[in-house]
């Protein structure tokens, strides 16, 4: 069977025998995008978080068939060194990563949160950012999330001054 989806702006038609293959493995092993991580395979850690039509999804537990016709964004598509996303900028300024393995999942979860709640309170962060980081970088992450919100709001103001 064939699954069509748009990943980081590029359309892909993927030939698969098992439509219940988790999206994670299609992204990592077929499309070769390794930024989305495998941590548990059971939707329990958030390392595999990416966006499906703008929503944060734990891709290890998301059968690829549900991605048919959808827009997928991974950490590679969120931004890059030339054109970083405000979340990535904030992450760099706060020097958040330690081992770094959980970080793409956290950045994707944060980017999705900021789209819903542009100025998250600490409680919003506690309730919505529920991935696991073993290195214990939560302290810097919280600072980076607030900073990313400020950056994103500043950009939005420039783009849509009337709303400001």
């Amino acid at each position: 069977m064939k699954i069509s989806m748009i990943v980081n702006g590029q359309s892909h038609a993927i030939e698969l025998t098992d439509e219940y293959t988790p999206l994670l493995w299609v992204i990592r092993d077929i499309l070769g995008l390794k930024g989305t991580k495998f941590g548990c395979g059971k939707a329990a850690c958030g390392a595999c978080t990416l966006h499906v039509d703008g929503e944060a999804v734990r891709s290890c537990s998301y059968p690829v068939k549900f991605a048919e016709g959808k827009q997928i964004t991974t950490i590679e598509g969120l931004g890059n060194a030339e054109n970083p996303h405000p979340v990535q900028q904030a992450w760099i300024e706060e020097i958040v990563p330690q081992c770094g393995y959980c970080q793409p999942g956290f950045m994707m979860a944060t980017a999705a949160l900021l789209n819903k709640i542009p100025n998250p309170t600490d409680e919003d962060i506690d309730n919505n950012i529920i991935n696991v980081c073993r290195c214990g970088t939560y302290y810097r992450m919280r600072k980076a999330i607030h900073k990313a919100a400020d950056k994103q709001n500043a950009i939005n103001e420039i783009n849509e001054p009337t709303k400001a």
Partner: protein
Amino acid sequence: MADNQSSEKKLSRRKFLVRGGLGTIGVLAVGTYVLRNPIRRAILEKANEMDLAYMGSTDNPMLWFELGKDNVVILHSPKIEMGQGTFTGLAQMAADELEISMSNIKVVHATTATGNIDGMSTGGSTSISGLWQPLRELAAIFREMMKIEAAKKLGVSVDDLSVKDGVVSANSKSLTYAEISEGVTNWTIPEKPILKDISSYKYVGKPVPRVDLDDKVYGAPMFGLDAEMPNMLYGAVVRPSKIGAKFISATTDKAEKMPGVIKIVSEDDFVGVVAESYIEAENAKQAIEVIWETPDNLQQDAIVSMMTVGNGKSTIIQKEGDALEGDDIVQMEFRSPIGAHAQIEPNGVVAFVEESKATIMISTQVIGITRKEVSSRLGWDAEQVNVIPTYLGGGFGRRLHTPHAVQAAVMSQAVGKPVKYIFSREEEFQHDMFRPPTHHILKGRLNEQGLLDGLEHHFVSGDVGNNSALVPNIVPPIVGADIGAIRGGFLQYSAVPNHRSVYWHVTLPFATSWWRSLGLLANTFAIESFVDEMALKAGKDAIEFRLAQVNDDEAGKRLKEVMRTAGERAGYSEEIKDGKAMGFAASVDAGTPCAHVVEVSVEDNKIRVHKVTVVLDPGLAVNPDQIRAQCEGCVIMGMSAVLFEQMKVVDGSLTPTIYGPYEMALMKHAPREIDVVLLQGKDTPGAVGEPPLGPIGAAIANAIRRLTGKRLQSMPLKLT
């Protein structure tokens, strides 16, 4: 001057091997490897004379530095980057002595083929401190070699040269290192490396950003699980869910017919399957029926009673004065549970076994051991196997055992293609090498002045350092004692006239090993909780009580300074304010003293940590920002272990096997404030990655004692 410091004399081969198993070798290559050998040999002669604080093989020259035509120096690190920031610290140290800018140094993991690997493994908080002297000396030799050749090429004396950012200049002429190296075949090696003055360093001591920051923020494929080789297949191995299960036989008919399956690999000790994709391999694995021989179902009670002071073999690790006797002794018990590493990147490996060579890409903390295990299973020489280490998605001691590398190699050999093999999360939990549970009995007695006249720590632990590749040189070996388990088990109250620490060793029926900071977390929890209880009994301030019982030797002075600073900085007080109480604890690990002051409250019967003040004296801080990051990480990882985590044996299996049920600290649990203060009590770098874990458990328990009157004696700390 300069000429006196140089010498072209050849050192004898014997001299290379002067240190037996100790030593290392440097190499420089420009563009291609044309110049590799002469320079390799040249630096080798120097490197072998140095007193290196780590072990490597000296049989082959090792590659330390490579210089490219673009004037970028590649540093081949013998240490693994697992998040602790070692690459950044090493880059700072090298860049300063090489006289190049941070943007012109790149750090990569050495492979077993380049030779510059550490036989001792990465861990024990020794990477920066151990390489502080040798790496700077090698870099200084490199710089001086460049200057000597530059002087020849520019026709001036070495003393007239100036060096900046990898460019050597005299008068108005200048040459880059790359230009200098061109055509040089006979390098002159300075006799003695001339180190720069520490105060002149541009990078050491500064909070420069991590060298791997961009890669980690933009999702670069850098971890073990990201490794790939062309035409790679996927393997899976059936693992037992019960402790002590032995593989007997397997029925594989069903699995053989599953989609994507290439081959079932049946060995004497395991059965695996190779398939075209990860999911197909995993699915086929589920279809294999294995008969295991399992011992009687073990239960948690049995583990707890096994793990009781008085069982096993005892060793006195510290003794001053007499043993405590009499009715006026205060005695308390403490326990810590089995802990899982729970690093987010599961173990995994890509192996490709060809006719007479094998390549292994893997997250490992023990490169040399991984290689040895693979080569001996294949019946080959170690040199036929190249281990390429990757960045680790968390280490914490979990990568000291890599039997999966052997299994992947066997599967690869069976199919003649590269095979990638990843642990499932369930396997990761069930087959972890756990932090062993511990039990502690503390005894003490107060004198008339309300100070301790005697203090004793009796404790039992499973294996930590025994059976482990990680043998740090910072803990004095004590015959009969497990050097990992006793870490943090010593009493730091040197002024107490009668004090002793007795370690009991019990071997558990499942594997236990190194978990970040080893015995430190549990030992400090027990000792510092008890000392706090004695301070309360004496009616004294928690910090004053401790300060009075530490001698004024060098280590004691540093410890006291850390304690005092923590108290002042946090405004330590025994009062309860706005429903919050403070708790204090301190420890010394691997020569690095650390104190914590925490502020806690109880909400809905749950412990909430609001603020943690950390004072650490790591000696010279190579990268203060990364040391702060390690302190923050230790606080949160420590809180996670102290407040939430525990594995239990249920019906012969280690449970739970997934995050969530294995409760860990999340964003919502992290303190809103972590205030880190760094002191510098000595002028060389000391241990950083583990020492800040020590005090957190006791500090929280001590605060809860003040807030609620309850003395919590078991980790994880629960109010009901």
